[in-house]
Every structure is written in structure tokens, then in C-alpha cells.
């Protein structure tokens, strides 16, 4: 497990070479949503919960970037490293275990969430949409978001044999998370059942935390959102290694 850092260092060296191509889907997409919704739909929506529409949705884009970064890295990225680039085999020939390799993957997903989330934060700050110094805690939220989504993504990747099946995860799990996760409208607008279901949506908790930190609404409920994300990360933590071990070690 300690040697997961060596795996992370390996990934970061590759990242230093490839980060420019990575910016596209991790950063461009949330910014496109922000501009379309914020500047377009925002014209028809006066205020949400006492703030302008673009102020309401902007923090959610940070969480969205965090979710996407870890998700894409630990689905498509991991799959390519296993089957196409055979990176897992080369790493496992070195003195590391499958546990190290998998935690290296998860940490890499979390680090990418922080980095790309911060790029979005920079853009939002430049637009003058940050209202509170509490935003300094944002990297923690992004790291936690990345951890949860990286763990989930690795579990799913361990279960599929064909790269096309990863689309199911994106369309059936990730897309509903961001459509109903309180990014574009407050979740209390949803029917009661959907509101209840949102409690198992990690992005919802991440969005609430990001919004509170950006706007300075530091209500006591925030601890609960953070606690739930930590709980999710802890609960999911044994499964990525267990499932991947079955796949990689014959």
C-alpha cells in the first residue's frame, strides 16, 4: 500500500506530458455547461436561493469537473492501461503489489480531480463569482470527491471486459448524478423520492459543499455532507482492489 505513491509518481510523470490533451474533457465541458446554462438559461431565471443563477450553478461546475476527472481517468484511462498499454503488467513486474497499483490509480484520479477542479475555480474566480475566503478548503472537497468517484470507477472497470461497456457507467450512473445532483436547480424542486435517492449521489454532497464554500453559506449541515462523502469513500475502499485482483491476477 505504501508503494502506491511510486505508482502515483509514475502516473504524474506521464500526466506532465499529457495534461494539455486532458484539459479538453475535464475542463472544457464544465465550462461549456456553465456558459450555456449561466448566460443562456440565466436570462430567464432571476434568482435561486437569493443568488444570481450563474452564481448558483458555478460552484457545481467545480464539483462536476472533480467527478469527471476521476471518473474518466479510472474508467477509460485505467482500462487502456490494463488492456492496450499493458501498463499494469509492467508495473506489477516491479516490486509493487496489485493493492499498490490500484491505490496508485485511485490517488491519481483524486489528484486529477483536485487539479482540474482548481482550473475551473480559477475561471469562476476570474468571473467574480467567488464570495467567500472559505473557498480555500475547496481542494479537500475535490480530493474527497475524486476519491469516491475513482473508487466507484475502478470497481466498474474491473467488472467489464469491453471498453464499450464503460459507456453504460457514464450514461446510466454518471449522467443522472449530474442531472439530478443539484447543479442546475435546488434539489428540493425534485419529487420526494428523487430527493431521497439523491442522498446516495456523491455529486450532490460535493456540489452542496462546493457551493457553500464558494458563496460562504457555512451552515451546520455541511459537516453532514462531508461526513457522508467520507463514509462513502471508506465504505467503497475495499472493493476496487478485491475486484481488480480477480481480473489481473490469474
Amino acid at each position, binding site marked *: 500500500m505504501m*508503494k502506491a505513491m*511510486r*505508482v502515483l*509518481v*509514475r502516473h504524474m*510523470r*506521464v500526466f506532465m*506530458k*499529457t495534461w494539455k490533451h486532458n484539459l479538453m474533457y475535464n475542463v472544457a465541458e464544465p465550462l461549456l455547461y456553465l456558459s450555456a446554462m449561466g448566460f443562456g438559461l440565466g436570462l430567464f431565471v432571476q434568482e435561486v436561493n437569493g443568488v444570481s443563477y450563474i452564481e448558483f450553478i458555478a460552484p457545481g461546475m467545480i464539483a462536476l469537473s472533480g467527478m469527471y476527472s476521476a471518473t474518466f481517468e479510472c474508467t477509460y484511462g485505467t482500462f487502456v492501461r490494463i488492456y492496450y*498499454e*499493458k*501498463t499494469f*503488467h*509492467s*508495473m*506489477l*513486474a*516491479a*516490486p*509493487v*503489489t496489485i493493492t499498490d497499483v490500484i491505490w496508485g490509480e485511485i490517488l491519481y484520479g483524486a489528484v486529477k480531480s483536485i487539479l482540474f477542479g482548481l482550473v475551473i475555480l480559477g475561471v469562476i474566480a476570474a468571473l467574480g463569482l467567488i464570495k467567500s475566503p472559505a473557498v480555500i478548503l475547496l481542494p479537500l472537497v475535490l480530493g474527497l470527491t475524486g476519491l469516491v468517484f475513482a473508487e466507484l470507477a475502478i470497481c466498474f472497470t474491473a467488472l467489464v471486459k469491453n471498453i464499450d461497456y464503460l459507456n453504460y457507467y457514464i450514461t446510466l450512473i454518471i449522467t443522472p448524478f449530474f442531472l439530478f445532483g443539484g447543479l442546475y436547480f435546488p434539489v428540493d424542486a425534485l419529487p420526494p423520492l428523487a430527493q431521497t435517492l439523491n442522498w446516495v449521489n456523491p455529486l450532490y454532497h460535493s456540489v452542496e459543499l462546493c457551493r457553500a464554500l464558494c458563496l460562504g453559506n457555512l451552515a451546520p449541515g455541511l459537516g453532514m455532507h462531508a461526513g457522508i462523502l467520507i463514509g462513502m469513500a471508506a465504505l467503497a475502499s475495499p472493493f476496487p482492489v478485491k475486484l481488480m485482483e480477480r481480473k*489481473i*491476477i*490469474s
Partner: protein
Amino acid sequence: MDNVIIAESLGKCFGAFRALNGVSFSVRAGECFGFLGHNGAGKSTTMKMIYGLSTVDEGILTLFGQSHRLTPPAIKAQMGVVPQEDNLDTELTVLENLETYGGLFGLSRREARVRAQELLDFMGLSNKAADNVESLSGGLKRRLVIARSLMNHPQLVVLDEPTTGLDPQARHLVWQKLRALKAEGVTLLLTTHYMEEASQLCDRLVLMHEGLILAEGSPPELVKKHMPPCAIEVRLPFDSLPQDFADKVTAAGGEVLRVADALFLYAVDGKKLWDQLDAWGVPRHACFLRAATLEDVFLKLTGRGPE
């Protein structure tokens, strides 16, 4: 320590398929030990057990004096692995590939760079250090993978089909490097389905077929033990040969081996058999007389030709 690897009755099943069926062998320190066999004979499964990608479910595998179900990092730290397929980091340059891999062994960036440069020199890749891996030819990639396997000064290097897909010149270069490594005292374990590679490099080898070891020894020993010294290849379709041809060869003291549509004759006195071919209705210009080789041992024991 005399034996670097001792395998006792290794067995492995993948569902209903039995990949290894009681494989025992031992590899001495400093030798080049080979696994010769078809694809699917069980060579790669055995290699994967050694370098920790497959668990030892049946039998005992002892590496550097220790037995484990799955080879642990401490043992992998003494080993280098050249896998069947090149799995280099395509985003990185030649030098960066080695440096980054060194990091997985816990080398600092500086240590890794020094070692990487030594190895690029050794493998004749120094002028390619800054090149992107994708731009390398198959032979150069292979040499880089071998260089990478040496980053940790391994005592044992496991090479899974090190020259498959290389042109003859690139293959000879790889062989030269492997000989140089062996001269430095590194133990080499290699799998191949090239008879020539096995004959050129291996001090001892085992011949594997359908998860079993059929024979073991040095290449000359194996030929001597299993084959008469002379071989005649009959390069005519089997159906076009006289019906009683095989009987005549046998009556004259020769052995007949049919592999698919090809026919091989073996004899202690090959010349005597050769001189009679025309009289038996088989034109000599369609035949070829030569000394028996490892390939003949392979044909005889597996009942199939090499691929």
C-alpha cells in the same frame, strides 16, 4: 545458492482448461534456462507464476530460497521481466521510460538517470535517449524493454519470447546482449518457440507440450538422447510417395516421422538411406540430408511441427 528457481509439480487450471499439469524443473544460478514449446504449451503460465501475475495453486515454487503462493515484492525486486508484448510508456521518451520504471523500484530520479544511461550504453540506445518510444523500430523497442528489465540490477531475468516478431538482424543483436548479460553472471530464463534461439542461447532447456515437460537437458544432449544423428526431409506431398516407402525405410533401420503433410526420416547412417532413395521411387532432388537438430526432437516428442 545453487538453484535460483525450484518448481515442484506445478499445476494450474483455468476453468476446465488445465494449463499446467505437474511441471517440475530447477534453474541454476548463472545459467540460461529455456522453455521451448508451442503457444499454449504452458510456458507463459509458468513465467507468470514466477513474476507474480499468477498464483501457485498446486505444487511448490521456490524462488531465491523462498516459497510463496504469489511472488511478493521483495522477490520481484531481485528480478527483471521482459514480457511477451512491449509495454513501454508510449507518452514518454526512451530515457524517461527507464527513469520512470526505476521509480517503481524505489530509485531516486538521479539514481535512475545514472542507471538508465548505463543501460542505454549497454544496449546501444544512447543516441535514441531523447526519442519518443513510438518512433522506435520493433528491435529497438525490444532492446529498450530489456534495458528496462535491468534497471534494478536483477539476479534473474525472465524473458517471455524475447525475439518474437523481430527480423533476423535485430534478433541476433538481442541474442548478443543476452549473452553479454549471462557473461556478467545474470541468470536468464527464457521462453521461445524458435528452435534456433533455444540452441543458440540455452545451457539447458525443457520441452513443454500441453502443460507437461516432455524432456529436459542441454540442446546437444537432447538431440543425442532422442534422435539418430542424421535426418532426411522429404519435400513431396505425402500422397505422392510410393505406398511401401515407409516400410522400406524402417526395414533399412531408419525411423519415419510424419508431421502433417511433411515426412522426416532419421537414421544412424543417413548416407546409406540417402543413396537408396532414388531406387525406392523418391527423387533425391526433392529431399534434403542434414544432421538432426533440436527441431527434430521437438517434432518427435510433440508429434507436431513448430509454428
